[in-house]
């Protein structure tokens, strides 16, 4: 910050100093000369119908075609998104299955919600086997499970909960490996750093904070509090040096970890409903965000402008993930369906 040391300091000096201070406050200013993107036409390519109630969560399998989704009615379904066939279905003993995840091997799924647990189900193609019989309860929280994710292997699961904590569990033994305390309210979402960048993850909560954690020590290494309401979704930027968040304050924001601050905000006066779910395209040029006003907005990450608005869902968009190879993205909604867009 500039300092005025004497009353003789000219008006010009002050203005220049102010200009310098304002010059690099965000990503959009740095990207001014980047070529703008053309108009996009993305369409719904598949509609997955079969859930009997609100779809709350979904995740892609590493094979880029299978999808697992979970719903308010307790059902968890595994789909082949190319053919829209349902390959597996299991009914959980609770309603509001708010979290589900595909194991890296593609051989199991994890899910949980109002049961306060995270359970793992091995996927089997044996028609005689009952999927529910092989269920393994791994995590146990003192309030609802809001998010879960396998780490780099099928052996460990990271969970986030309404009890304000996140935790790392060993799948085989069910043992708690590390717990993460620091949020002042429900934790709603989490995302693991891309494997190249090491052992950290980011979480977002009802305390409006996004927190970055060291998985080995359990310590919070950085925290960000610029949102004005609950953070519903967090997603790492492909390089691992930044992450995006979507919030009930109707904005999405980009936080740079090395600068330790917010560097971009994606908002419009006309967007007044909360963003429930965000994800990046493969290169990080596009940010897809699902909103409670039933739409999906596609943002130019560098320039901060909205490049497209996608209509189709007939109720809130609750979950959204780009496929592992970046060729499509899938959205799930309270209208009971999932859509694959490309």
């Amino acid at each position, binding site marked *: 910050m500039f300092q005025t040391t004497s009353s003789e300091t000219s008006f010009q000096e002050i203005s220049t100093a102010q200009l310098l201070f304002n*010059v*690099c406050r*965000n*990503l959009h*200013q*740095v*990207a001014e000369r*980047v070529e703008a*993107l053309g108009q996009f036409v*993305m369409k719904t*390519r*598949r509609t997955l119908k079969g859930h009997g109630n609100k779809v709350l969560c979904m995740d892609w399998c590493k094979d*880029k075609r299978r999808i697992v989704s979970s719903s308010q009615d307790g059902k968890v379904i595994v789909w082949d*998104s*190319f*053919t829209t066939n349902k390959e597996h279905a299991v009914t959980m003993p609770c309603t509001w299955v708010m979290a589900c995840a595909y194991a890296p091997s593609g051989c199991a799924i994890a899910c949980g919600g109002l049961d306060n647990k995270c359970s793992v189900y091995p996927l089997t193609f044996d028609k005689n086997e009952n999927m529910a019989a092989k269920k393994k*309860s791994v995590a*146990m*929280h*003192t*309030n609802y499970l809001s998010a879960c994710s396998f780490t780099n292997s099928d052996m460990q699961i990271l969970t986030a909960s309404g*009890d*304000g*904590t996140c*935790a790392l569990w060993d799948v085989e033994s*069910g*043992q*708690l490996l590390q*717990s993460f*305390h*620091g*949020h*002042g309210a429900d934790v709603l979402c989490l995302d693991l750093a891309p494997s190249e960048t090491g052992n950290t993850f980011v979480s977002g909560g009802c305390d409006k904070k996004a927190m970055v954690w060291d998985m080995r020590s359990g*310590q*919070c*290494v*950085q*925290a960000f509090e610029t949102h004005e309401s609950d953070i519903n979704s967090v997603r790492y930027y*492909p390089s691992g*040096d*930044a992450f995006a968040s979507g919030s009930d304050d109707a904005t999405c924001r980009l936080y*740079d970890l*090395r*600068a*330790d601050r917010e*560097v971009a905000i994606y908002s419009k006066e006309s967007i007044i409903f909360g963003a429930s779910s965000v994800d990046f*395209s*493969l*290169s*990080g*040029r*596009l940010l897809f965000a699902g909103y409670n006003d039933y739409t999906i907005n596609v943002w130019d*990450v*560098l320039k901060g402008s909205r490049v497209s608005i996608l209509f189709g869902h007939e109720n809130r968009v609750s979950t959204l993930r*780009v496929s592992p190879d*970046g*060729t*499509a993205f899938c959205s799930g909604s309270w209208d009971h369906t999932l859509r*694959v867009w*490309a």
Partner: protein
Amino acid sequence: MQKMPVINIEDLTEKDKLKMEVDQLKKEVTLERMLVSKCCEEVRDYVEERSGEDPLVKGIPEDKNPFKELKGGCVIS
């Protein structure tokens, strides 16, 4: 199966939560920060290098799209 070491935020008092926050801030004060301008330039460069190969940015030809329309017949023109 192990239960969480009990910490339920509903049980914490305002004072406990504020203390937690202050402890956290004390740790963060020592963080070394990079300049925003440099970080943003790196983000921009990272994206520009890769966006040419980003399927959702450049589009995929219909015949190569794994999610192309499922059609029964074919078009004869």
